[in-house]
Structures are given as C-alpha cells and as structure tokens.
C-alpha cells in the first residue's frame, strides 16, 4: 500500500467505520437506544448544544481552570525543580517528602477542598495545580541533572556567571524534559479541572455533565463526553505543536531523527 493511503486514508476509514458501528449497535437495539443513543442522535444533541451560549461559557470555564492550574504549576514546579535538580544536597533533603506526597492522587483531596475552599474557582485551580505540579517537578529535576557537566564546566571556564549559566546552558538543555513534563501535566490539569467541576459543582463542562446525569438526559450525557474528549485531543495537539515550535532547534524535533 502506498504511504499516503496508510497515513491518511486508513485512519479516516477506521474512524468512519467505528462511528458506523456505533450507529448500527444502537439502531439494531443490540444495546438499547436508551442506554446507547445512536451516533446520529448524539451528534444532533451535540450540534444543538454547541449553539447555546451556556455550553461555550462552561467550555471557557473548564479551559480557564486548566490554563490557570497548568500555569501556576509551571510557575512553581520549574524554579523548584531547577533548584532541587542543581543541588545534590537540596534534592536529598526533600527526597522523602516528595516521594510521599507525589503518589497521593489529587482525587483524594476533592472532599477536603469541597468542605474547606468550597465550590469555587479556587478549589478547581488548587486541584489542577496540585496534580500538574508533580510530573513537571520530576521532569525538571531530571532535565537539570542530565545537563552535560562538560558544558557547565566550559561555561564556567569562560567565566559565565551563575545566572547566565542558567539561561545559556542549564535551561536550554533541560527544556526537552521540561516540555515532556508540560505535556503530561497539561493532561492531568484538564482531568482535574473537569473532575473538580463534576464532583464539586464548580461551574464548567463537568458541572453540566452532572446536571444532565441527574436528569437522565442520556443523549446529552454522551454528547458532552464526546465534546470533552475533543477538548482533550485539541489541548494535546496545541501543547505538542507548542513543544515542536519551541524545541525546533533541538535534535529530537528535527526531521530525520524520529525519537
């Protein structure tokens, strides 16, 4: 098969086949239409949903929770990661607290946030930041630790100061790691923003889902899940594109060296 058929036609056919299968399973009542609304019904529900202002407001609120959470996490985790990564001493001093805090699933904090910060943007942002913080911290630490010591020594022998060494040597060579962290954290932040809305009732797409669920509006439940998935895919693409752009000088992103 020629390359373009494999890389373009096959995925399209595969997606269409899956959508057709969905329609078929529902229309033939293999799974009842009440439990699994047909693809066409769901798309129709989504179509009328995206024509309402309420949907786009909720959409914006979810994106806002994601963006603030990810931004705050980056603002805290990257400097802390650089500090812990460049000092062997600091890294071992904070090793145990980090190892114990990192595996706590942020989901476990939902009831506590609900009863302390309440149904506010603050709860949502806290949750998203907490979750997004750890992957970024760990990646930044690894990245800084992985800087070529010869590069650092060379910079030192050219009498580059600490600050300049940080900007010219450490940060650029740690950047691929940091971006891997941002990619992971961006997914986590979206999950947690949505989770906060679903479980705590903070306004956003998650809260809309909760609303549809309590009224048993199945086509809307499916439509909203579909939309949330598309938002997830969109965010993934935006972050990956940003990574490609920022790291365009780096060997891992150049053509011919597919990592």
């Amino acid at each position, binding site marked *: *098969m020629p390359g373009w058929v*494999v*890389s373009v036609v*096959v*995925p399209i*056919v*595969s*997606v269409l086949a*899956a959508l057709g299968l969905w329609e078929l399973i529902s229309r033939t009542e293999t*799974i009842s239409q009440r*439990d*699994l609304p047909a693809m066409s019904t769901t798309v129709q529900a989504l179509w009328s949903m995206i024509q309402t202002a309420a949907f786009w407001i909720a959409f914006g609120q979810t994106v806002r929770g994601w963006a603030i959470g990810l931004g705050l996490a980056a603002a805290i985790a990257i400097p802390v990661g650089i500090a812990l990564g460049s000092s*062997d*001493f600091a890294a*071992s*001093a*904070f*090793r*145990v*607290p980090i*190892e*114990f*805090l990192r*595996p*706590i*699933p*942020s*989901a*476990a*904090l*939902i*009831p*506590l946030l*609900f*009863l*302390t910060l309440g149904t506010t943007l603050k709860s949502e942002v806290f949750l998203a930041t907490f979750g997004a913080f750890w992957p970024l911290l760990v990646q930044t630490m690894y990245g800084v630790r992985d800087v070529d010591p010869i590069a650092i020594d060379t910079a030192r022998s050219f009498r580059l100061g600490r600050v300049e060494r940080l900007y010219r040597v450490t940060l650029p060579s740690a950047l691929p790691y940091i971006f891997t962290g941002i990619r992971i954290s961006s*997914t986590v932040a*979206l*999950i947690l923003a*949505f*989770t906060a809305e*679903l*479980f705590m009732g903070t306004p956003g*797409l*998650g809260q809309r*889902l909760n609303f*549809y*669920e309590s009224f048993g509006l*199945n086509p809307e*439940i*499916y439509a*909203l*899940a579909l939309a*949330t*998935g598309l938002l*997830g*895919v969109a*965010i*993934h693409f935006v972050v990956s594109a940003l990574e490609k752009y920022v790291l365009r000088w780096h060997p891992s992103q150049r053509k011919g060296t597919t990592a």
Partner: protein
Amino acid sequence: MSPRLYRTLKISAEIAVPILLLVAWQLYTLARDDPKFPTPTTIAGEFQDLFLFSQFDTHVVPSLERIFVGFAIAVVIGVALGIPLGLSRIGRSAAMPHIEYWRAIPPPALLPISIILLHSIGNTQKISFIAFFCIFPVLLNTIDGVRAIEPTLIDTARSYRIPTHERIRRIVFPAALPQIFAGMRTSLALAVIVMVLSEYFSSTDGVGYVLLISKNTFEFKPMWAAILLIGILGYLLNALFLLVERHVLAWHRGWRAATPQ
C-alpha cells in the same frame, strides 16, 4: 568541606527535613485548633482505628480487589493488542485515532456512561472502568517497545524460518518487556486514581466510599485518614511493583550492563 562531612550532613538533612516538616504540621494544626485540620497524631490515631484493621475488610479489601482485577485485565488486553499493532503499520494507522481520542478524554467524563451502559455501580462497573483507562499506557508502551526492536533480530528469526508465534514469544515479547513494564507502572498509579474517582462518584463500599460518606457527614478525621490511606496505598503499590520489575527484568539489566552503549 571534606567529602565525608558533606555526606554526613546530606544524610542528616534527608532524615531531619521530613521530621521537621511533620513537627511543623503538628504545631501548626495544634495552634490553629480547627476541626477541619486535625493534627497528624489525631489523623494517625484515626487511621489506626479505622483501617488497622476494623474496617480493613469492608473498605480496603474491595478497593484493592478492584485495582488488581482491573489492572490485570488492562495489562492482558494492552499487551495482546499492542504486539500486533506494533508489528503492523496499517494496524497502527487504523488504531491510532481511537487510541489518541480515548487517551485524551478525562476519565470522569465517562463515569455516568459507564453506569448507564453496565447498569451497575458495583464491581462490574468499577473494574471495567479501571481496566478501560489502564489499557492505554500499557498499549502505547507495548507498541513503542515492539517498534523499537532491532530489525536484524526479526529478520534473522525469519530467515531461520521460526514460525510467527514462536518469533513473538521468544523475540518480540521479551524485547518489548522493559517498555511494557514502564507502561504497567504508569497504569498502576492510574488504577489507584480511577478507583478513587469511581468509588467517590457512586459506591457502597471502598476507600472512595469512606471519602464520600465523611464529606456528606462533615467528618474530617476519617476523611484525612482516608487521604493518608490512599497515599500509602499508592506508595506501597509502586514499591511492590518496582520489586517485581527488578526480579522479572533481572536478565535485562544484566544484558544492558554487558553491552557497551
């Protein structure tokens, strides 16, 4: 500073900092005297009362069972799909849009759907839900692991006319195993998160249920104890997994140590 003094200082910092943080937390919560933020000693006491071991069978065992069964199903499906997809370019091209979509969707968005489709808020729904989301890290890592295999290995096996299933069993699977384990480790951490989410959404037992009930009754002590338990669970499962991995992949580390990079 002599290297020995530095080493001693470093080790003492590693021990002292966590203790100082705990003491600071204790003093802060004591001074604050707020029922929302009990002292660590109170939380530890509550933890002991609840989970060691009076409610261990009713709430910890069901959660662990869901994690293990869901995780095991995910590993089997992830590897079984990942190996053929790793070997077939067309298969990958057909499967990738689906994998990318399901991987990007926030898991809680599918919680209501899982309940509607399965007519259950019990183990069927919990285990399927955990298994579904844990498939993706295993699947993607298996695909990557299979793709990274040295082509000469496969070609050699082929030229010796080793049949396909033998080739997969003896060459493809072992070569991809380190990467499969990396995926499994991500999935295991994910299993804990998804377990908490699904139990907190709707359940009649489990650790997530303890969180739900203590929220509804404004009981902060069991809530903190449950958070502590979930943290410990995540930590122990990861430690246990690393132990298993070290044992299973012992041959791999030996091989890597013996070959110059």
